[in-house]
């Protein structure tokens, strides 16, 4: 007579009880609220096609309008708003021949997107749009803007990333080999791409608090591009020892000017233009560390790990980093979130993540409000 297999654990043991508790309460987003929003006007339009909706680039305006770009079989640009009478993601168009959006930057009165594809690494732009005047509960209207193509950034080289310069008057992009700038105050017809220097493009670049743009240089260092002077300083900053070779990721604390980045092993560092790097602040539970952004009280939120990322929070006021689990949304759309391509801080301090996956959504994350006792 065969019998049932006997479990090899004591269900009453503290270890097993702790495991169960962690599985039940710690697998999915442990604090705050996530809201996954499809790339459409919900109930009215269809989302960007499944294999064209990997959201890889995001930027936002101080008023809370978001702009983004996708990657996949065809790249798309979109505008999104979740304030006022909105909750919409509206497609703005498809840059011809583009299959990847490397960056989107709000600068001047336009939105510049940097895309790659059969026609090379190019910059295109559309005018910024104020959706606050529309009532997306009733009687709305919207016309897609005309996409202006500004040409190839540097012949034969893919664009790696781009950021808006100081006061969002310019844009700095990096290709695989060169730094390129745009005067964002020019009229659309007069926008020019200017190759200003040679530097490798690898991972993301970031604007420092003193007007320098930083990117990964050869060896264990960063290059610095001085936007005002238009000059490139190679090997300007040495990366912390043991930083490793993971593609660079950055987040900016807009209040303090402090930047955050992460090494290949998931170690979190801060960087201040002028003061340099901190030591290791904390370690993310998984590596590599992906997109990150900082909310108004200084907490850093990001994703780490491949295939099935986990969210983390680093609180500089305590120096502690918490694993917040796998992203899941039960509001707006019921969805798990596994891989993310970019992050920005929203108008009210919420974090907006772009999902880099088939059927990618915009994920709004509303961090948990700190308890009164945690006030500074």
């Amino acid at each position, binding site marked *: 007579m065969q019998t049932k297999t006997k479990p090899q654990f004591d269900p009453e043991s503290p270890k097993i009880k702790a495991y169960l508790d962690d599985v039940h309460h710690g697998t999915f987003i442990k604090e705050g609220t996530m809201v996954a929003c499809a790339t459409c006007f919900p109930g009215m339009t269809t989302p960007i096609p*499944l*294999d064209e909706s990997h959201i890889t680039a995001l930027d936002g305006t101080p008023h809370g309008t978001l702009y983004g770009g996708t990657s996949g079989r065809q790249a798309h640009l979109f505008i999104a708003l979740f304030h006022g009478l909105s909750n919409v993601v509206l497609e703005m168009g498809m840059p011809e021949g583009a299959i990847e959006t490397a960056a989107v930057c709000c600068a001047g009165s336009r939105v510049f997107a940097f895309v790659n594809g059969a026609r090379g690494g190019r910059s295109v732009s559309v005018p910024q749009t104020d959706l606050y005047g529309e009532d997306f509960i009733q009687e709305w209207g919207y016309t897609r803007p005309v996409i202006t193509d500004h040409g190839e950034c540097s012949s034969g080289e893919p664009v790696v990333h781009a950021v808006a310069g100081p006061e969002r008057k310019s844009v700095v992009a990096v290709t695989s080999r060169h730094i390129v700038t745009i005067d964002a105050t020019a009229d659309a017809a007069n926008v020019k791409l200017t190759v200003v220097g040679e530097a490798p493009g690898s991972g993301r670049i970031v604007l420092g608090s003193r007007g320098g743009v930083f990117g990964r240089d050869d060896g264990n260092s960063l290059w610095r591009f001085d936007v005002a002077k238009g000059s490139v300083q190679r090997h300007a900053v040495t990366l912390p020892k043991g930083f490793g070779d993971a593609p660079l990721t950055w987040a900016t604390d807009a209040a303090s000017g402090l930047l955050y980045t992460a090494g290949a092993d998931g170690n979190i560092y801060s960087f201040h233009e002028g003061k340099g790097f901190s030591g290791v602040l904390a370690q993310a539970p998984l590596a590599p560390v992906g997109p990150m952004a900082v909310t108004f009280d200084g907490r850093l939120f990001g994703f780490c790990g491949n*295939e*099935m990322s986990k969210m983390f929070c680093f609180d500089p006021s305590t120096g502690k980093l918490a694993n917040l689990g796998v992203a899941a949304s039960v509001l707006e759309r019921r*969805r798990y979130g596994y891989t993310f391509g970019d992050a920005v801080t929203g108008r009210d301090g919420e974090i907006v993540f772009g999902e880099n*996956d088939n059927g990618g959504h915009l994920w709004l994350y509303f961090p948990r409000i700190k308890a009164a006792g945690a006030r500074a």
Partner: protein
Amino acid sequence: MQNPSGLDRRNFLKAGTGLAAAGLAMANASAKAPEEYGVHWYPFLEHPDSDTCWSLSVGPDGRVYAAACAEGVPGGVVKPVRYNEKKDGLDYLFDLAAMVHDPGTSGRATQCKIHYSFAPSMSDGVLYMATHLSGPPIDLPVYNPWYSWHDEKRRFIGAALLAYDTRQEKVLWYDTMIPKEGCRCLLLDEERQLLYSMSYPRDHFIIYDLKTRKHRDLGRISSINPQTLFLDKRHRVWTTDDYGHLIRYTPETDRLEVSPFTLPHPQYQTGWHSVFYDVAPSPDRECVYASLWCPNTNLIRIWPNEGEWPRIENLGPATQDRDTTEVVGMYEDHCGGLVFAGDGQLYYVASRWRDPKYNPMSASHKEREGVVWRLNPKTLAREEVTTLVHPNGFAHYVTRGAVDHNGDLFFGHVGSYPCGIFRVAMPAGRKRENAHLPLRVWG
């Protein structure tokens, strides 16, 4: 052992052609007098860990195979079984976990089940089978694939794919088809020697090439796993996304596309969770019949060979009315086991439960039961033919149905212990030799 059906691929095609006409004739005969559908129960007593039977299919040999799954017992493993008509009992074929050298004692999530993942190959007599996850490691009470995804010690090795030769009665080879994930459902395109599957938990669409034995990941579809993939005449593969849209894979374009419409769902629902549960092909392969993995599912008929996107027919609710303000659990309200029998009629099992307003039943009546329905595909008339009876539990949740070479119906079941399968002996006038042909090629 000899193939009991005695059919090769040529005869299988010939048998399939005459099915529609035979079905109509039998349907007319069926209206004349009450008929006896004898229900027989076969528990998995020789695999006491077994607590579910998610997969049941007819093999290329015309015999019925089922998966004795063990997902509730830490360290549990699946054992494929086969109905043996000579002894009117079950043969236990092998311990699948041992076969793929991933034993239940590994300390990892186990090879605990085959989930809608039998796929028979007529030309060579092979029954492909792929494993799914959920069974906990032997020293842990539960397994959560999201929680343990990055845990190198605990995580599931991956969906094992086995090629079982039903003629020689042995496993020819095995491979890891989907690393780290389980296989929720499987489909074989025999002509092109491709296996299609959905991964769990990430809901990725996977293509496995039997010639090269390599898999390709086409990416994510949604969040909720569809429970079936089906194949059309143009070798396109169909399934669903979270919101009840059809998803279509076209080999020529190598793309996954989303239909502009959702499948028919009750008007008080939004279409969310309208993912395929079970899909049965019509004998002439011009359409399929589907139930959805959603409470209050409709029966749906889909004509994939018509138009840019298929013509869809709503055949109406499969289960009883209810108070729409009340949540009816997915394990209570259910429809599965869709299968065409030798009489050319569609059979399926729908749950029925006690409801004070919509279905009052006496206290002596079991609170839930599985009703076997017969649907005439020409008239769409439905008739209740019998109910399934579990000796000490409910029998309302049928997973898959199949018809064997003798023309009898078989149903896999979950929800009561001991777990097992049902055989429903068809009335003599409705039986047909080689009624299992043409084969359904998906789980």
